[in-house]
């Protein structure tokens, strides 16, 4: 499959070189330039209708609005924490829209944009960050697994799930999300080995947003991440992660290859985390403002907007309509989040097992009895 061919040439690392994040990248797959110009790539033809293009733009804008609203809600004390996807909208929407209904996505904790494309209610994601539950959506019906906070663990789950699909003869694949930092974990390396050995229909989608909290990519790898795949015996490809069309095309091709029995692919979406790691993080301690300014010029939304206007696919009315939709979503998120109440405390006990053991039942009863003594105590 030529579409996913990879180079094996190793780039000479320059340890400690300043501003290493925007090198010349001959390997980068791009279909829409930062200026909004549509370009062709020999391996990745993409047919998208005007309707689809408008849809992708709408996704990007709504997902960004969800994100900024959540950041604001965290500042107001309505959420315990928020992991912002700012700057990674194209990577997530492109990858998410490449999935078929029967495919299964395995996110980390930042894939709100993918959640959006799977139809997960934003309030279910927000309830996790508010601390009222551990993720309120149904992974089975949405095809979107629960978030995984322990770095890299989900890559093995995705591989095992893919092996299950393979055994069942299902023509589906899994899409495992991971960060650049995650590639350092032993478990991720094990996932790559299993996927390769069993030709599992899994696509590893690595958002290289250049940082693992404060650690720059140079702390994790001396070769471009997509080149690692070669060592495991399957294709690796680097795509412009701020280009929703390129991400869509590359992920579609990789998922099609996986469903077709050709085994795994490693996709490195080259992108940038514009915000803090989470709302508890202070990025000014470890990165320069100039770097951020450079990346702003590659904004994933601006280029789609430019393309839509320039090619006459969308007019002012359309953009105004999307803005109105974003306002409505923001309002739903604001009021909805404030209404997310904690469940009954007995929930602590109720889903630990499919069959509750007697000792836990005893602890639950003791808990109920103890708390009943306080009821009405203050009245």
């Amino acid at each position, binding site marked *: 499959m030529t579409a996913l061919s990879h180079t094996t040439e190793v780039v000479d690392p320059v340890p400690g070189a300043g501003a290493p994040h925007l090198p010349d990248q001959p390997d980068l797959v791009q279909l829409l330039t930062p200026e909004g110009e549509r370009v062709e790539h020999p391996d990745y033809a993409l047919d998208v209708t005007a309707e689809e293009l408008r849809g992708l733009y709408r996704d990007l804008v709504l997902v960004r609005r969800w994100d900024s609203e959540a950041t604001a809600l965290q500042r107001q004390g309505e959420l*315990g*924490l928020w992991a912002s996807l700012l700057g990674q909208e194209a990577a997530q929407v492109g990858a998410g829209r490449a999935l078929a209904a029967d495919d299964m996505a395995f996110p980390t*904790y930042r894939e709100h944009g993918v959640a959006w494309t799977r139809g997960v209610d934003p309030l279910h994601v927000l309830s*996790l*960050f*508010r*601390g*009222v*539950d*551990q993720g309120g959506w149904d992974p089975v019906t949405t095809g979107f697994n629960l978030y995984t*906070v*322990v*770095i890299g663990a989900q890559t093995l789950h995705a591989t095992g799930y893919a092996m299950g699909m393979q055994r069942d003869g299902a023509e589906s694949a899994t899409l495992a999300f991971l960060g650049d*930092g*995650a590639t*350092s*974990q*032993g*478990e991720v390396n094990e996932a790559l080995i299993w996927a390769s050995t069993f030709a599992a229909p899994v696509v590893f989608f690595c958002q290289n947003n250049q940082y*693992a*909290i*404060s*650690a720059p990519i140079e*702390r*994790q790898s001396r070769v471009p991440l997509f080149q690692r795949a070669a060592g495991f015996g399957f294709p690796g490809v680097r795509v412009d992660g701020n280009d929703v069309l390129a991400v869509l095309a590359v992920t579609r091709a990789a998922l099609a290859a996986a469903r077709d029995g050709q085994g795994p692919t490693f996709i490195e979406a080259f992108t940038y985390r514009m915000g803090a790691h989470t709302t*508890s*993080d202070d990025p000014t*301690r*470890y990165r320069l403002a100039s770097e951020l300014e450079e990346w702003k010029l590659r904004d994933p939304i601006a280029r789609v907007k430019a393309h839509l206007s320039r090619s006459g696919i969308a007019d002012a009315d359309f953009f105004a309509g999307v803005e109105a939709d974003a306002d409505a979503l923001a309002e739903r998120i604001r009021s909805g989040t404030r209404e997310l109440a*904690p*469940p009954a*405390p007995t*929930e*602590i*006990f109720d889903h*630990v097992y499919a069959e509750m053991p007697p*000792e*836990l039942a005893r*602890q639950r009863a003791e*808990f109920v009895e*103890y*708390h009943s003594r*306080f009821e009405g105590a203050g009245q």
Partner: protein
Amino acid sequence: MTETLTIGKALNLGLRRAMEDDAKVVLMGEDIGRLGGVFRITDGLQKDFGEDRVVDTPLAEAGILGTAVGLAMRGYRPVCEIQFDGFVFPAVNQIVTQVAKLHARSKGRLPMPIVVRIPFGGGIGAVEHHSESPEGYFVHTAGLKVVAISSPADAYWGIQQAVAHPDPIIFLEPKRRYWDKGEVDLDGAPAPLFASRVVRGGDDVTVLAYGPMVKTALQAAEAAAEEGRSLEVVDLRTLSPLDLEPVYASVRRTGRCVVVHEAPLTLGLGAEIAARVTETCFHSLEAPVLRVGGYDTPYPPSKLEEDYLPDLDRVLDAVDRALGF
């Protein structure tokens, strides 16, 4: 010289002094360099000691502990920071199968002076895996020593003692108390590392706690005093080896004992302590040794953690029950 410090700052100063005292001390962990760690415990240390001594590692806990083993074999003293309790598990293979056993297997030829610093426990409103109490796994593993600090003075001195100690030490830092302040005598003689300590004298019930629960136990003692009950509070400080002689002495006087921890009840440290106190002080006991712990459930979402974590009411309830026998 005596200073008022937070537990976090005391750890920072203690690490600084340990590094000054011994050039073989190397700090390793995720984000501990320029960022100073997510809790800023290593703030400023990389600036002053350089990137070779304060190492920002790749995002790989097995790597942090596995390379620490090799460094220790070469005479270095690695001090590993695990970012949060829930992320120690990828490193558990190295800790349990290698770090804990190499001294014994080599008949003492391979030193393992490794410190694993872990911010542990709940109460900070975090998402999952950021609030766990994994001490039981380590206490259960022979070859490791386990310490849990609860005060700035113990933070400052304890970390230095742990770094200088020849055996591997799991060093548990109560993350929700990082910002609590207390007096630290920077020159005075420190309390021994592997000793428990009576932190409040009393006659009616002995309450044992460690790490974050020491403050809770003291609050309970305060509240109990208002009702005319006198609780003796013991800070265990060392979980492996356990130092129970002062506890036995206390229980022989009070006749009653309550053990408090955040970790789940079943096979938590309270179980071991209850067994030992019962075996040793059976004839002095007026009531069974009672335990207050977390429930045998996963740590809950943060909005329910107040329901999960032992608070002073649950300690007082256990005290009532002990006195009711």
